[in-house]
């Protein structure tokens, strides 16, 4: 999926969080978004997802303005620490990943996805019994339930152990190789073995966008 952001400015009440941000991604690009806490990384992706209404500037997905874009099913999203998810109430992995008329995959394809991401064995477990890394992968599978063309990951490896971080980025790299555009918010770019093509660094609301050589040689 192609993503174009031009002259995006966004603020909460009287505080400007994003100032005049512009960048462009082609299908199959892999963007790393970096910046300190509060630099507006999550705010930016929430604008792209249409969760934050954009007062000034333009965002388009596959050349369609997001105010007219009605197919966010094409966008997979893994929120930061799954903060929007209501925990503690018992629910199994399978119950979260229910195939409904809102998902594009069949029951068999779902099982394939679970196997590919490595959580087939825990599909009937209560999510409150899972480790951080397992839970992470559940949400990855959920974001893939619609065969997304754009995958947005907001600090997906917080609280996940080193081995699982490596496995996780391996999976993300594979998905990217299949042609899915990826936007990854990350705190520590050196920690990951992700193969970025572009980098956007946010500082005090301003952005620096640049192309980087894909880390194939690593």
């Amino acid at each position, binding site marked *: 999926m192609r993503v174009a952001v031009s002259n995006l400015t966004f603020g909460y009440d009287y505080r400007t969080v994003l100032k005049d941000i512009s960048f462009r991604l082609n299908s199959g690009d892999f963007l790393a978004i970096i910046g300190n806490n509060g630099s507006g990384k999550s705010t930016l992706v929430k604008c792209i997802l249409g969760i934050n209404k954009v007062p000034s500037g333009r965002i388009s997905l596959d050349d369609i303005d997001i105010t007219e874009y009605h197919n966010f099913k094409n966008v997979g999203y893994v929120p930061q620490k799954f903060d*929007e998810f209501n925990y503690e109430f018992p629910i199994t992995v399978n119950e979260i990943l*229910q195939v*409904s008329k809102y998902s594009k995959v069949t029951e068999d394809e779902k099982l394939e996805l679970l196997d590919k991401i490595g959580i087939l064995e825990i599909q009937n477990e209560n999510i409150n019994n899972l480790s951080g890394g397992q839970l992470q992968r559940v949400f990855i599978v959920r974001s893939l339930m619609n065969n997304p063309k754009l995958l947005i990951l907001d600090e997906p490896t917080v609280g996940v152990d080193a081995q699982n971080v490596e496995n996780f980025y391996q999976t993300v790299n594979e998905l990217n190789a299949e042609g899915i555009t990826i936007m990854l918010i990350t705190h520590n770019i050196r920690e990951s073995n992700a193969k970025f093509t572009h980098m956007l660094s946010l500082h005090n609301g301003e952005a620096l966008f640049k192309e980087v050589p894909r880390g194939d040689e690593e």
Partner: protein
Amino acid sequence: MLLANVPFVVALFEYPFLRYALITGVIMGGITPLIGSFVVIRRLSFIADTLSHFSLAGLSIGLFLINIIGFTFISDPLYLAMVFSVIGALFIEILRGYYQNYKEISMPIVMSLGTALSALFISLSGGFNSSIYNYLFGSILTVGDRYLVVISVTAVILVGLVLLFYKEMVIISFDEQYAKLLGIKVNRFQFVSTIILAIVVSLSIATVGVLLVSSLMIIPVAAAMKVGKSFKNTLTIAIVFSETSIIGGLWLSYELNIASGATIVLVNVLILGLVGFFKRFFINKRLKDNQLKIQAK
């Protein structure tokens, strides 16, 4: 109650009002935890209390209109309670939109308004009397066949909607943002479920009374979520707990000649306590071992 010289089961066959009470109780015992589970997940546990207090305003205005003004065509103030419960629910939704970051503020505002209106109209109707007492603490034994029909229709609609939209309701309750991304009409769903919730709250007033309504909806769910393995399993356990408290509570209140609403709630709390106790001393270690096994997969 002066019937206690015959056993509860025998009395059930002899007295229709006792049968109505039991059937009403069993229906309410099924639907309150069903809707209560979704309420608990959305962290709206206080909504039942708020709406029941707002219903009380409807009840007291109803009593005022019937007894003082003479509007006898309002056969039962409980119908006005239902209308007020729905109005209260709409107020809450409006205020939740108004205070985006402090959504819970809507509850005390609506609750205060409801309580103030109730106090005003109770005093205008000549102060406290036994019917107000019944509305505050429940009077399941006075439930008639007409009321039973209203409750049954509501139960059928609620169960039908849950069966039809189960998946959507689960997605919305657990993760509203994700539901929006999927294109689910979240606001529409929430509007409908709030209206049904309001109706169920006003109907449960007859069972346990205004002050105890939320206990029917929340306590069985609170107990079940401590032992449930999955969402469906938790729902089922909550309904079993709830029915046990209703049937057990009615039986105890009959045998011991004590208030039925209060007994039902106390049995509910007893179940919650027992679940907590057994979990703490008998199940916790096994659960921990199981958790470690799962995480090693």
